[in-house]
């Protein structure tokens, strides 16, 4: 986790530097949205979203939109920053849904297991 945070921060620094180097000092990158979406994506991965079909779909959407946003941020310019901010907002929403779907899958399995446990116990005590 520490390594990932460090990598993300490094990436943000590089992107920020690239924008400044591009001479567009007035177009600020959407740092909050970048951090927020990156945190949601990491949380979705930790929740096991890649192993749950529905969750995997939304995690993929989040990753794609996040990647597009990074490209736009790297390109610089106010319009690109604005578009990137919106893409990151979408990516956060997708990742949050992926987290919930992954957790829901675990809850469903736990409920099924609890019912199976009853049946198993009833069979054993017949």
């Amino acid at each position: 986790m520490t390594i990932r945070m460090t990598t993300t921060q490094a990436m943000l620094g590089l992107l920020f530097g690239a924008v400044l180097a591009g001479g567009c000092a007035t177009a600020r990158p959407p740092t909050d949205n970048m951090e927020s979406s990156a945190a949601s994506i990491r949380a979705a991965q930790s929740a096991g979203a890649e192993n749950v079909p529905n969750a995997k779909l939304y995690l993929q959407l989040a990753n794609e939109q996040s990647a597009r946003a990074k490209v736009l941020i790297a390109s610089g310019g106010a319009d690109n920053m604005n578009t990137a901010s919106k893409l990151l907002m979408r990516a956060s929403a997708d990742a949050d849904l992926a987290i919930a779907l992954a957790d829901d899958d675990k809850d469903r399995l736990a409920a099924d297991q609890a019912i199976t446990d009853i049946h198993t116990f009833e069979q054993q005590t017949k």
Partner: protein
Amino acid sequence: MTKRILIVSVLATLGLTACASSPSRELLNARRAYTRASSGPAARSVPADLHKARVSLDTAEAAFSNDSSDQRDLAYVAERKAQLAEVLANRAEHAVVRVKAEATLASEKDASHVQTKEQLERAKTDLVNAEHDVADQKQRAAASDVRAADADTRAADADRRLKTMQLELAKWAAIKEEPRGVVITLSGSVLFASDKSTLLPEARTRLGHVTAALMETKERRLHIEGYTDSQGKDAYNVDLSQRRADAVRTYLVSEGYPPDLIVAHGAGKTMPVADNATAEGRANNRRVEIIIAPAGGVSMR
């Protein structure tokens, strides 16, 4: 021409207006997602999350009304929030199912535990009862053995006393063993004067010895039977033999033999033991028999 240009311009303006007021695909999706979520369990189980979706949709609708440039993105997010509310509602439902199932399992385990405990207690009680039964049976068997040994001892003792009595009686009367029992025969001429039923003094002495011997076995039934010879009328002989049998019975009772164990019977001239044609034979036929019934039964002719 001018009129045609005006009409085209109006239509073009209307068309542009219509395009501008058409909701985006994202907004339509967001509306549908919210409608679905709000009509499901989310309203009950996750009202706060549904409210966030509502706020998000309202923001998207406002952006659409204001023709804002980020209306599509806001609608996209609103759809996800509505979907999120639905999924969170599902999670809550799953949690309820799991908690109920776990409670049911715990309850069934408790019930099973109680049942098993009760079965164990019953089994313990049954075991204790069985052990008591075995102990009782052993005790009864031991008591039965003791009783059987006592009975054997008593039977042996009775046999010994009977033999002793027979040896004693043999000195005073004729003794023989028949299927009906031990038969003691006393001569009528020794016991009674001719045609009388009163015991002679000598008879009392002899009967005294007989009675003393009989007292050794006074739990036995006695049959006293009187007989005559063939002379005289039958009815008279029966009456005489009955009175003589009664006289012997009365004597035995007076000496202490239990009266309910003695039966007296006059048989007259029946069952002769000797020839009535001779004086000696008739003397032998005039007799009184005391029959000692076998142990455990009554012997009758």
